[in-house]
């Protein structure tokens, strides 16, 4: 569950637009959240209802949805058997929020070793080189 907490902590760190976020499974079991347990349970339940109702609108598999309301926007993103529901204020940057939610959801499924950030390749220290002036340049 440590990677779940990490993924959600990272989500709140990178996205200032997200006010509430809950990760849950297809049965509505909460796997992690950035709100208290009671609220997380309610959000998961309502998000699942919304997702199931939305699934009926198309013949294909639903992968994500957003609903804009005057006082806020709700998002639900699915990745295999896991879903994440989030809310923001009105008029968020929709693409950015979807990206952050998908990243968070993927973080949930990863092994702890995979979530460890790879060490950045070290840059070779910059060497200052001087090009010898051409004689012509020096003369002018």
């Amino acid at each position, binding site marked *: 569950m440590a990677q779940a907490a990490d993924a959600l902590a990272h989500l709140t760190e990178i996205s200032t637009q997200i*006010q*509430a976020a809950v990760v849950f499974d297809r049965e509505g079991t909460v796997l992690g959240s950035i*709100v208290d347990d009671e*609220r997380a349970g*309610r*959000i998961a*339940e*309502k*998000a699942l*209802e*919304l997702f199931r*109702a*939305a699934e009926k*609108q*198309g013949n*294909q*598999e*639903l*992968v*994500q*949805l*957003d*609903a*804009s*309301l*005057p*006082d*806020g926007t*709700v998002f639900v993103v699915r990745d295999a058997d896991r879903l994440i*529901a989030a*809310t923001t204020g009105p*008029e968020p940057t*929709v693409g950015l929020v979807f990206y952050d939610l998908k990243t968070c959801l993927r973080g949930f499924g990863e092994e702890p070793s995979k979530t460890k950030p790879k060490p950045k390749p070290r840059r070779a220290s910059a060497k200052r080189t001087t090009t010898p002036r051409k004689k012509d340049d020096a003369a002018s």
Partner: protein
Amino acid sequence: MPRRRVLAVAAAAAGSAAGAVFLRRRATRRRERAELYFADGSLVTLTQGSPEPDQLLAHARDLLAAARG
């Protein structure tokens, strides 16, 4: 003088047209809508007014209310 009057009328007309565009855009933005993204890349946009989107938006309102406690 008539030229000035014509300019004033034109400015008033342009102002009211810009205002109308602004209000219309704001109203569109404020309209409730849901966007559904499917696995094949298709997108369905539902706006309020017909029964199914209204039901979907009701679920969304419930979710937002639950999140706000």
